[in-house]
């Protein structure tokens, strides 16, 4: 069965309905219509019950299916500081980097503090590379293009998932320091490095490639597929995804429920659905019309908040939801006539 037929009446309808009923109940009591008020209260309580049970299934049951591992509290192992570094250049400044490194042997985060010489152009990646090349070569992290397009250097900086290469040190100082930690929304490997196999699998779940029937033309092209500017605009921002994994790390649902395939994959589902060249059509909608697909999304919009490229996955998911609902209505109309 399609999930939209379950989630819509049990979550989304009560989400709007119960507040309206409660409001109406209040108004009728204030206006003196006691018996109408009592009926409205009864209705809203039934609505609440349906809402509660369905929400319980969404939030708690799925979560119980996953296994839970607790990360033990961080310990400080190496307390260096700014005082260790001497003689900065005139325009430079020493900043303390508090690096929370995941130690695979003890399975806990260990905080090391390094004093790093920075200038007004330094970003966090520069700082970490300076630590690696000058004071501690054992520090592990991912990095490559240093211009915010490869998506390697996702990490949690001052509590917010960010790309290290796009985070200026001086502008993001918090209490005169920078705190760096790995993304806990991905399985941890070592130090700031997290495992992405699970992330790539989620991406593949939505069949993220252009589906075409004309295979000969596809591999031996002779003409371009025509596409107007308006058609291009429909999917353009969602094609900017650099697969850095920050949205997954920020998503509160992914962090608490491993089933949910997450904002990155869903935004790519919409990207291919909205592409006028794609021939998979509505089957893409059916493919994500699942509880672990679009309907587990609670619209916290944290994914969009941290997305470094302005992909706005939360928007893409809401668009998918509306497309699914629209599609349902069209189908129902067609089957009636």
């Amino acid at each position, binding site marked *: 069965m399609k999930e939209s037929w379950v989630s819509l009446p049990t979550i989304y309808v009560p989400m709007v309905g119960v507040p309206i009923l409660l409001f109406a109940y209040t108004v009728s009591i204030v206006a003196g219509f006691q018996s109408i008020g009592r009926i409205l209260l009864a209705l809203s309580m039934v609505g609440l019950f349906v809402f509660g049970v369905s929400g319980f299934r969404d939030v708690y049951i799925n979560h119980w299916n996953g296994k839970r591992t607790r990360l033990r509290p961080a310990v400080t192992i190496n307390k260096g500081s700014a005082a260790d570094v001497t003689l900065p250049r005139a325009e430079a400044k020493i900043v303390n980097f508090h690096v929370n490194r995941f130690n695979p042997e003890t399975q806990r985060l260990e905080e090391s503090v390094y004093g790093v010489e920075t200038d007004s152009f330094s970003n966090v990646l520069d700082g970490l590379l300076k630590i690696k090349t000058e004071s501690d070569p054992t520090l592990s992290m991912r990095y490559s293009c240093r211009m915010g397009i490869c998506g390697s250097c996702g990490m949690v900086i001052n509590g917010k998932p960010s790309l290290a290469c796009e985070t200026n040190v001086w502008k993001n100082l918090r209490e005169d320091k920078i705190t760096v930690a790995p993304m806990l929304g991905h399985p941890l490997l070592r130090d700031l490095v997290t495992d992405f196999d699970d992330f790539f699998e989620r991406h593949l779940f939505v069949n993220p490639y252009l589906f075409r029937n004309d295979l000969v033309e596809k591999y031996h092209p002779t003409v371009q597929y025509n596409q107007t500017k308006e058609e291009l605009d429909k999917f353009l921002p969602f094609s900017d995804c650099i697969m850095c994994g920050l949205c997954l790390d920020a998503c*509160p649902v992914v962090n608490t429920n491993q089933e949910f395939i997450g904002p990155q994959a869903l935004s790519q589902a919409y990207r291919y659905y909205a592409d006028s060249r794609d021939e998979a059509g509505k089957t893409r909608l059916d493919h994500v019309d699942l509880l672990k697909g679009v309907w587990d999304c609670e619209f916290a919009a944290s994914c969009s908040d941290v997305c470094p490229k302005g992909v706005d996955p939360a928007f893409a998911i809401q668009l998918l939801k509306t497309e699914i609902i629209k599609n349902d209505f069209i189908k129902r109309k067609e089957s009636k006539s």
Partner: protein
Amino acid sequence: MENKTTYDVRGGQRNLKRQLSFNRESFIHMAFYRVLIIVSIISFFVFLLGFWFAWASRLVDYLVVLVWILFIPQIFAFLKGISMVGSKGIEFGHLNESYASALKVDRNILFIYRLAPYITTGIFVFGLGLFILGVLL
């Protein structure tokens, strides 16, 4: 090939508190929702008890206040979502600035999408005041 040894800390509801450090609004929205689910189910049963016990029907009124408060962030997020889809992602969205500024939309009516969630949520909060003054007291 050797398998990777990874350590997965996802799954527990306590992970929600990670939101606090960068998106407080989302934390409130998430935490309230989780409490609301439990409170909703309890309210329903207390309401049923109200047919037999007077204290229970008095308790329902207090639970309604709680439910009402817990609903505020849900309503606000829901309306934001609708506004966002309606305004093509410009209001309450985080689309790429270069793209959004060039997007063809009627910019004269955008303020409706911007204000609607605030106004509607405001009315809902006003309703809570009305409930406390008119029904509870």
